[in-house]
């Protein structure tokens, strides 16, 4: 069996949903004739035609606004942001129009807004951001951040089928770096369910996106020292899998919260509060955060390397926490 890359998994997920449901269509910048800046929609124009793979003007707000309008008329639009950074241009349509329709007047807005987020490719301040928390803080939205090819495919399908607006962040560092054999039959990954990537007994590392791999690498290194990490991949940030999170913390009694996003207002802060509220008695040590510093994402390799959380950061914090 051939291995499927993360980017190909997203493409397959969209393709299969478009074949199955004629309400599904894609709109965005350079998605048609060029097949998308990262080739997520390669070949779709030829297969589905120009009214289902729609090249738009450079108008992120109108791309999302148009997706909302079409969704209200019964369509299932997928709006591509060429880079997740550009989602800021559509912030108002997403947070004020899409997110609040059901609450205000009972109309669902089943759109998917997706785009490549994350650093590690020297993209600089405007092609590397992790904008998930702006949307996690918006009731009415769902936010997912897959880390594997399987999840990338299963979550894009779940997002397309979901009756509410879903913001789907694909990590561009993983596009062609992770691959796996995928089942040939139709499958979805439910939104709101975490996955335990590595069961362990000593410390829980709660993370998502590309940082899952840093956590797994750290776990491998610490294994030799007899420290057993449990790596929990959150997969969905909104809604998030509180049950799995708390179960893991109650088992290991120590927790590291890890993300590539910056520190203040990052998801780690929310998780720390929940763990403190609901599992305080189970903790045998301080809740530790490992995140990017509170700066823009810098461009030059030494700067970006400094910015991104590293395997060694996790190893060091885990050692301290283990000894606590």
């Amino acid at each position, binding site marked *: 069996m051939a291995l499927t890359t993360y980017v190909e998994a997203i493409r397959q997920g969209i393709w299969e949903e478009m074949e199955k449901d004629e309400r599904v269509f894609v709109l965005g910048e350079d998605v048609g004739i060029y097949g998308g800046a990262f080739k997520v929609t390669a070949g779709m124009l030829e297969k589905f035609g120009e009214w289902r793979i729609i090249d738009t003007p450079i108008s992120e707000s109108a791309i999302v*606004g148009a997706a909302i309008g079409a969704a209200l*008329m019964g369509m299932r639009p997928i709006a591509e942001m060429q880079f997740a950074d550009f989602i800021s241009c559509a912030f108002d349509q997403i947070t004020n129009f899409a997110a609040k329709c*059901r609450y*205000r007047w009972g109309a669902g807005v089943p759109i998917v807004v997706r785009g490549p987020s994350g650093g590690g490719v020297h993209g600089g301040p405007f092609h590397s951001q992790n904008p998930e928390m702006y949307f996690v803080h918006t009731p009415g939205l769902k936010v997912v951040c897959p880390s594997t090819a399987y999840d990338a495919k299963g979550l894009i399908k779940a997002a397309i089928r979901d009756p509410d607006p879903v913001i789907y962040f694909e990590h561009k560092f993983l596009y062609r770096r992770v691959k796996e054999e995928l089942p040939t039959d139709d499958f979805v990954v439910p939104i709101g369910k975490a996955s335990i990537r590595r069961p362990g007994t000593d410390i829980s590392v709660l993370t998502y996106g590309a940082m899952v791999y840093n956590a797994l690498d750290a776990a491998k290194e610490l294994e030799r020292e007899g420290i057993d990490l449990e790596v929990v991949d959150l997969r969905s940030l909104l809604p998030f899998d509180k049950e799995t999170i708390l179960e893991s913390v109650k088992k290991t009694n120590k927790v590291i919260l890890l993300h590539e996003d910056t520190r203040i207002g990052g998801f780690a802060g929310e998780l720390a509060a929940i763990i403190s509220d609901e599992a305080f008695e189970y903790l045998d040590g301080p809740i530790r955060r490992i995140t990017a510093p509170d700066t823009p994402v810098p461009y030059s390799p030494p700067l970006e390397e400094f910015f991104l959380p590293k395997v060694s950061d996790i190893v060091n914090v885990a050692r301290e926490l283990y000894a606590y």
Partner: protein
Amino acid sequence: MNVKDINPEILARQVVPPTRLPPDQTLLDLLYYMKLTRELEFRIERKLYRQGKIVGGVYVGRGQEAIAVGSCINLRADDVVCPSHRDMGAFLIRGMSLRTILAQYMARKTGATRGKDGNMHMGDLKHNLIPFVSMLADNVPVAAGIGLSFKMRSQDRVALCFFGDGATSRGDWHEGVNMASVFKVPVVFICNNNQYAYSTPLERQMAVENVADRAEAYGLPGEIVDGNDVLAVWDAATRAIERARSGQGPTLIECKTFRMTGHSAHDDAGYVPAELFEFWEERDPINKFERFLKERGIITASGIEDLQKRINREIDEAIQIAEKDPFPDPEDCLKDVYYEGE
């Protein structure tokens, strides 16, 4: 149009006069909906609001009734309307009940948003009415997408999208109009140019003379009509709707009018020169249309009185019901953030 320099000749030179008339029954419907709009908003703004029965702000379209009424009267039920905040006539014509509207303004559970949102933020997919949000012009890209969905599916439906002059300064307006024109979608953009955005006059809003001038930049026709002439609005909208329905793309219609109130019920509009109110009072769209209908023998003075009585009665009855309607349960706060099943 520079408000300081306004005079009837300028207006007369710019506007497109009506080239045809609707059937008599439509003429009477136009009058009914304009008068119903006027009376309903009068009750809301001048009675219920002052009696403390309205929750939150009130924004009315007094003096602008001809625009929503004239452009919506000919729509099909499967067409879609995206009103803005001074387009009460659109809700009435699309079939939203007086009780639903009044309950909305009184924050009741029976209102269009079940107490979740206020005043003219009303919508209902049953009536193909898409509610407005306070971020002006957000409905423009949404209307473009509605039109896109019609075009993709080869449906001969049309979307009408309303906004004021101030909204045309927002980026979403430009993104949405441009996208609609690039894709040649069946949307009619209708501007209530009432010359003030809250306290800001038109010359502080744009450096071009007319909102319709903006159309050229996006490659769609831009037409100016006297927004206080319901027949001119009807004629321009009818042509634009036919044009959209037959696949020729969007049109921008600028309706020149005037906001005969403050921005909202708490605003006395002290910043508006008194002579502007006088100028436009003489051009009141309802008085003007009543004179026209009487001259043509389509309705008599007593017929108009009877119509007013009927409207008063309909509104009285709806107020009585809405006032007794329940407020939402506090826990409803938590409901319907996400899909909860049918």
